[in-house]
């Protein structure tokens, strides 16, 4: 049972992160390479606030969201006006900066050793102690994230983001403030990812920089594209594939000496097969980056 709860929480965290990223990647069509950085901002903010000030969970969400939003604004202000390729570089730069901060700002982050002993979250003056309670809490928060993202995607704002993705020049000619909308999507996405980071810190009770580096960002991009960027169920399917496939491979009897490598190869082959035969992703309608038919 604890194993199933662990897998369920892990899956929910990935689902939340995938939908948060999809607002930028799938709906707006911007390749954001610093999603794990925002996730890390949430985790470290929660760890520091909870350990130092015993702050309640809602306060951690608020501060983590604010810090992530400020980081998102700072990086998108100079880069969003430029071509999308420059934004990819700028977001990668932010990812590197955040990773270096987590690694080197030792007085706050404890460097490579990470922060351990993060207490259970405080919800209405009570600690959420049991794993089942944490699962329900994660389910509720991730449910809110998915609802918010889906709500935005199907709203006039979402339609404007799709328009920007399809043809930014035409969107401008029709009076859409494209830079402002792209920034808004990026800020919302980053803040939502930070909320998942808060949950992650409390669930794992230990965080270190390796959980929020560039490789993790690339994993998030992979799972959204695998599931189908911009589609209703794509991010959830991608998250399920990335979390559950490696878990399923645990039960295949392979000699320990080659086990991890063989599992990695099987996982990679599965991903390649999906990309070859479903380039638009499992539940997607468009191949990422090829939205127009011009």
């Amino acid at each position, binding site marked *: 049972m604890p194993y199933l709860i662990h897998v369920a929480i892990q899956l929910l965290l990935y689902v939340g992160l995938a939908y948060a990223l999809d607002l930028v990647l799938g709906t707006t069509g911007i390749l954001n390479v610093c999603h794990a950085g925002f996730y890390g901002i949430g985790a470290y903010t929660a760890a520091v606030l909870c350990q130092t000030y015993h702050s309640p969970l809602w306060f951690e969400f608020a501060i983590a969201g604010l810090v992530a939003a400020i980081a998102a604004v700072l990086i998108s202000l100079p880069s969003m006006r430029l071509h999308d390729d420059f934004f990819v570089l700028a977001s990668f730069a932010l990812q590197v900066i955040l990773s270096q901060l987590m690694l080197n700002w030792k007085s706050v982050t404890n460097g490579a050793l990470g922060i351990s002993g993060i207490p259970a979250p405080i919800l209405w003056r009570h600690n959420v102690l049991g794993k089942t309670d944490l699962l329900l809490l994660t389910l509720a928060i991730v449910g809110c994230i998915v609802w*918010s993202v889906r*709500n*935005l995607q199907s*709203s*006039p*704002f*979402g*339609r*404007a983001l*799709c*328009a920007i*993705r*399809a*043809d930014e*020049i*035409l*969107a*401008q*000619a*029709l*009076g*859409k*403030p*494209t830079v402002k*909308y792209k920034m*808004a*999507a990026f800020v*919302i996405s980053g803040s939502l990812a930070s909320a998942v980071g808060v949950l992650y810190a409390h669930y794992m009770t230990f965080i270190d920089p390796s959980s929020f580096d560039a490789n993790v960002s690339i994993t998030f991009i992979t799972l959204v594209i695998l599931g189908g960027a911009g589609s209703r169920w794509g991010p959830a399917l991608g998250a399920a594939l990335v979390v559950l496939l490696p878990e399923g491979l645990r039960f295949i009897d392979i000699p320990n000496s080659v086990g991890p490598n063989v599992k990695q190869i099987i996982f990679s082959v599965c991903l390649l097969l999906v990309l070859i035969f479903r380039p638009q992703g499992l539940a997607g*309608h*468009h191949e990422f980056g090829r*939205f*127009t*038919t*011009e």
Partner: protein
Amino acid sequence: MSVFCRELTKSFDGVTALRDVSLKLSDQGIVALIGPNGAGKTTFLNVITGFEKPDSGSTEIDGTSIASLRPFEIARLGVSRTFQQVRLFWDMSIIDNVICARQGEPVEGPIRSLAKLGVRAEDRRNRRDAERALASVKLDGLANVMPQNLSYGQQKLLSIVCAVETEARTLIFDEPVSGVDARMRDEVLQVLDQLKNYRRLILFIEHDMEAVRAIADEVVVMDQGSIIAFGAPEEVLSHSEVIAAFWGK
């Protein structure tokens, strides 16, 4: 809505596309912009819609200088345009293209969209108006079709509908009937002609002189980056300099 350009000059890598272009357009009517290829017509449209910045000179729309404005801000001043190559939101249905053109910032804002503050009612209204607009150009039966499934002429017509549905007072069309068949050409010209009734200024680039004669109230002729004639169609098209520019001496 008036458009006033003063001594606009624009060069690309040493090639002068606009040379001291000055032009004042009144607030309504149909103005055709004609000239041989490379005359600077599209560059002129790009400059007055903010997609290109002039090297020198200025443009005022209703007395407001657009020098520091971005294209979307100029669009919000009431200037909407189409492009020479058809531009549509290709992965959105036809009706969504029109709704997207109609919807404005208050309802598009992320906070209002998330909280659904008055969004549904406005979205319903925009959908109803978009359906009406599509019906007026006989595209209502294709509302949920993707734009790439339309004929080239229908795509041009849809792009015009999108520009019109922004409710801009000045509409700029870059070659609205080039490459379309005769029947569709007549339909597009009829749509443009009907826009006269809504007291709008329509500026369009066209090579089809029959189309120009059919609907234009005034004609502006450009050649080698300069305006060489401006006036009523019959008068301008019989001008010796215009004939020389188009058909040689």
